[in-house]
């Protein structure tokens, strides 16, 4: 029982970080109907940025977030403007898969040239620190990463629900033509929205290297996990991504401690298939569709 609860704690902490990465992706899907296969590569790119800031300037990854997030926001806006803007609405969903996969490969290629293919990780002074709460071990790094994720997701929620820009984003998701008729320029919203989704990934990417070793090819595993989370939560549903991130985090970590870590990766897909058999649109696919 003790190990199961230990697994649940770990799973919630990890799930929060998945929720953050997947939240950015589901946001992009909601706004643009683009399945962004480059989201994993953006996380890894941000992880390398943070790695460089740490190794060459001694900047802590949790501080580096303040640099990587705005930088990746700008990159996201630029990528959307250069490569995705021209896609016509009718076939955006299909073509975007090819385009964003190409972007992922390009990012991977550049990273493997610049950093070679060996695995990196960020060894902060507190990397092995853990707290003991009621007999359970809580890793400091994972706890901080979880808190960061909750904070960023909270800010994202406030941005979408309490600001003029956020209202315009949600309006564009729910009824693009009506939004245009109220003076919203969808091209602008799409570019900024893609930037926002990428920045969200970047926040998670910044601290990724504290938890997992990574190399340029790590984005393949990551994107398959993120897609599982996004589809499980229901494409385009931010709340769904959060719930799904935690469900998947908890189930894979419980499987890892109860049986074997080898099976934990597999859990992603088992949970996903089980839910999709019952709810083909994902957990919140019908309830919150278009709600963001």
């Amino acid at each position, binding site marked *: 029982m003790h190990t199961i609860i230990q697994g649940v704690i770990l799973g919630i902490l990890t799930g929060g970080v998945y929720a953050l990465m997947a939240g950015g992706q589901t946001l992009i899907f909601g706004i643009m109907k683009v399945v962004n296969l480059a989201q994993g590569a953006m996380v890894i790119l941000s992880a390398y940025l943070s790695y460089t800031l740490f190794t060459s300037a001694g900047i802590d990854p949790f501080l580096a977030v303040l640099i990587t997030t705005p930088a990746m926001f700008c990159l996201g806006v630029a990528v959307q403007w250069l490569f995705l803007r021209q896609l016509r609405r009718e076939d955006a969903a299909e073509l975007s898969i090819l385009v964003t996969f190409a972007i992922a490969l390009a990012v991977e290629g550049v990273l493997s040239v610049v950093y070679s293919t060996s695995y990196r990780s960020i060894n902060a002074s507190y990397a092995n620190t853990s707290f003991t709460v009621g007999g359970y071990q809580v890793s400091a790094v994972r706890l901080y990463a979880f808190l960061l994720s909750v904070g960023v997701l909270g800010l994202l929620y406030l941005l979408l629900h309490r600001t*003029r820009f956020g*209202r315009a984003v949600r309006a564009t998701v729910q009824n693009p033509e*009506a939004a245009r008729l109220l003076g919203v320029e969808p091209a602008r919203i799409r570019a900024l929205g893609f930037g926002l989704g990428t920045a969200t990934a970047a926040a998670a990417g910044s601290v990724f290297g504290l938890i997992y070793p990574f190399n340029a090819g790590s984005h393949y595993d990551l994107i398959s996990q993120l897609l599982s989370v996004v589809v499980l939560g229901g494409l385009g549903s931010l709340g769904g991504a959060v719930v799904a991130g935690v469900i998947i985090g908890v189930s894979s970590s419980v499987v890892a401690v109860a049986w074997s870590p080898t099976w934990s990766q597999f859990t992603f897909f088992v949970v996903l298939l089980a839910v999709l058999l019952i709810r083909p649109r994902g957990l919140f696919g019908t309830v919150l569709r278009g709600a963001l």
Partner: protein
Amino acid sequence: MTALLNLDSIVAGYGAGDILKGVDLNVSEGDVTCLIGPNGAGKSTVLKAVSGLLRPKTGRVLFCGDDVTGLGPKAKLLRGIVHVPQDRSLFPAMTVWDNLLMAGYLKRDTKALKSRIDTVAGLFPIVVQRRTAHAGSLSGGEQKQVELARTLLFDPKLILLDEPSIGLDPKSRRLVFEAVGQLAADGRTVLLVEQNARSGLAASDRGVVLEAGMVRLTGTGQALLADPEVARLYLGAAARPVTTTTTPGGTE
């Protein structure tokens, strides 16, 4: 009365073919002008060409005497043209209140907007009664009222209303036509597209008949209602006089 809006040989379409084949149309300031015609005639397309959702291939759109042909919806909105499209134009998962606030997206003056919401709520009390409800949870008639209320928040010079009564129950239809009557009484300029030609013409100062992308007939609302040709084609029966006050919602 001067022409507020002036369409001059507008040709427009969605791809290779032209839907509008040279439309000439004037809307006088302070008038409610009703555009009628069979399904697919291009009535909605006319409104899109005016609001900037669709860019005319040739021809000119003059508003207050200025050439505004190539301008998009945002620029048109800033000049005072508001388009209420045929399809639902609310944001279903946003609250009624947030839907209203979207009218302030361009002009960021929240204080002025809120005081206008108070004024408009006099005409459409639903916007305050249901302010925290999700727009998608309202009935069709209630949604249309919120759309009309949001339109008035712009204090528009010209309102483009595309089939506001379509798909509504008789009671909501009556409310919509009452609202149109109220707009007319306030001296607002409205270009109204109406499937229900009888009620539409009865509520309007002038009528325009569009057929296959061309203007066939124009005249006062009453004259078109009395026209035997119009009656045969669009009123479904021999002409009979109808007034706004007795059968505003239409009875057929």
